[in-house]
């Protein structure tokens, strides 16, 4: 047998998702981590690298102490918002492939509802000039919520492509809720209709309540190992990190004065990830697409090349993102209906799909899946994951 050249995800673990965890974010992280270690058949001392996908929740020092690790040889913290999980997994793969370390833990967990409402961006996730930008040039002008930032993009997009209604947004919400209804972990499982979407309360136009993701307490951890790691439990299901790409947009600290306002960093990130994996959009069996708001799914389907620019709406209205469609999307329900775990839940769902463990939402014969992450002001990161052959 020739040694694999590509790093693999060999374990994942998660807590339940709720709005009232009653424990600290560190405890949530530790529960997910121990679950991931059991899944991989590893002891904590087998970990020699940690990447934090965000600057919320547990720090690397918190985790290193709690796991009593004697000699962490690699660590890094991602500061790219919702692009962080994909970047953390991609960087973990490169760290083990280059020999910097052997096994990397990527863990994210927080009380995104009960402690720090995610819908109002917590100030501790801002650094540098961004603090002044948010306060002096946006908040003072009434621009405060993530829903508003994304709404500004959506309004402009709808104008440029001549949209007269938001039925395509409804199609995204309904399709993802259908997946969530069959996912026992999902927080929102009650079926919804297009009419429910169109009559849900307006948040910030064009977004209604059912266009918006939720806020969640919970944690998810993933373990990435080097290709030739033979100490793992025999038969551990491996999912290879076949491709990774990322991109920062111009003026990444804000979106409104970016010359090309609808520039999407997901486009170059996706091209790089698919080139590294040697695949094209037609070879992708399913996608877990970062979905803080319904519109962001439509936009990314175009940016990633799954349909031409301006046709993302028709793609979702035609049912292509449902099971049996051209590209099942957010087969767990996504941030909209499963939970908002910063996109780590998208990675976890891709692992389940490629292991054949996705239950009623299993995409039959899934060999390659694409996962995206996106930061508020446009950072993009994309993974291509494969079932190890």
């Amino acid at each position, binding site marked *: 047998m020739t040694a694999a050249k590509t790093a693999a995800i060999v374990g994942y673990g998660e807590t339940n998702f709720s709005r009232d965890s009653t424990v600290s974010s560190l405890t949530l992280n530790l529960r997910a981590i121990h679950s991931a270690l059991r899944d991989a058949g590893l002891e904590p001392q087998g970990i020699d690298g940690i990447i934090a996908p965000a600057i919320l929740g547990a720090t690397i020092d918190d985790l290193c102490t709690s796991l009593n690790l004697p000699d962490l040889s690699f660590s890094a913290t991602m500061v790219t918002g919702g692009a962080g999980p994909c970047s953390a997994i991609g960087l973990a793969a490169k760290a083990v492939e280059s020999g910097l370390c052997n096994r990397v833990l990527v863990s994210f967990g927080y009380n995104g509802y009960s402690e720090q409402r995610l819908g109002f961006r917590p100030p501790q996730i801002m650094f540098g000039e961004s603090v002044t930008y948010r306060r002096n040039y946006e908040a*003072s*002008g*009434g*621009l405060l919520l993530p829903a508003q930032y994304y709404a500004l993009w959506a*309004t*402009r997009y709808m104008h440029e492509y001549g949209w007269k209604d938001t039925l395509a947004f409804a199609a995204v919400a309904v399709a993802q809720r259908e997946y969530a209804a069959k996912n026992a972990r999902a927080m929102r499982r009650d079926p919804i209709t297009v009419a429910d979407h169109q009559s849900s309360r307006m948040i*910030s136009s064009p977004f209604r309540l059912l266009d918006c993701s939720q806020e969640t307490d919970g944690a998810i951890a993933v373990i990435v190992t080097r290709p030739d790691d033979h100490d793992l439990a025999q038969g551990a299901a491996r999912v290879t990190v076949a491709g990774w790409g990322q991109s920062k947009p111009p003026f990444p600290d804000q979106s409104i004065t970016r010359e090309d306002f609808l520039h999407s960093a997901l486009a170059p990130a996706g091209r790089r990830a698919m080139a590294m994996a040697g695949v094209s959009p037609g070879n992708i069996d399913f996608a877990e697409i970062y979905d803080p708001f319904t519109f962001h799914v439509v936009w990314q389907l175009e940016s990633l090349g799954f349909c031409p620019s301006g046709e993302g709406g028709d793609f979702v209205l035609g049912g292509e993102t449902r099971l049996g469609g051209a590209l099942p999307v957010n087969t767990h329900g996504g941030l909209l209906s499963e939970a908002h775990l910063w996109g780590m839940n998208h990675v976890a769902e891709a692992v389940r799909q490629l292991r054949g463990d996705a239950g009623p939402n299993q995409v039959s014969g899934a060999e390659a899946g694409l996962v995206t992450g996106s930061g508020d002001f446009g950072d993009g990161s994309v993974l291509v994951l494969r079932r190890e052959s």
Partner: protein
Amino acid sequence: MAAEERYPRPRPTGLDKPYWQALRREDLALQACLECGTFQWFPRAACTSCYAERLAWQSVDPRGTVFTYTVTHQRVGFAFDKHAPYIVAVVEFPVPGTVRMAGVLRGVAAEEVRIGLPVRAAFRHGGTDDDETVLEFVPQ
């Protein structure tokens, strides 16, 4: 004062103080590059077109057009809530460079706002001497 009664307060920095001083005079001033003539917003340490550090604040024509907008109904925990639903507009100004500024657009009904609507700068003066004047927009 309860949070819902007040607006978010800007804190002028060493860089943007002239902008806030201009707003108090009901004047719209933007950072312009003395080397290449490009205007820029947000204020930056140097020109993002030619990297020159020689920048100056210059008054500009306060008329622009709505580039994009959102009508906000959701509570945000500040005095904006008293006027909900209110329009947050991004307004583009026809100066050299890409200058778009965000602010509340008043004087137009939520169902009347549209991309391309001609607007001009308006000024919301603070309640006390310590409060900065904040940029808003009204139809031309």
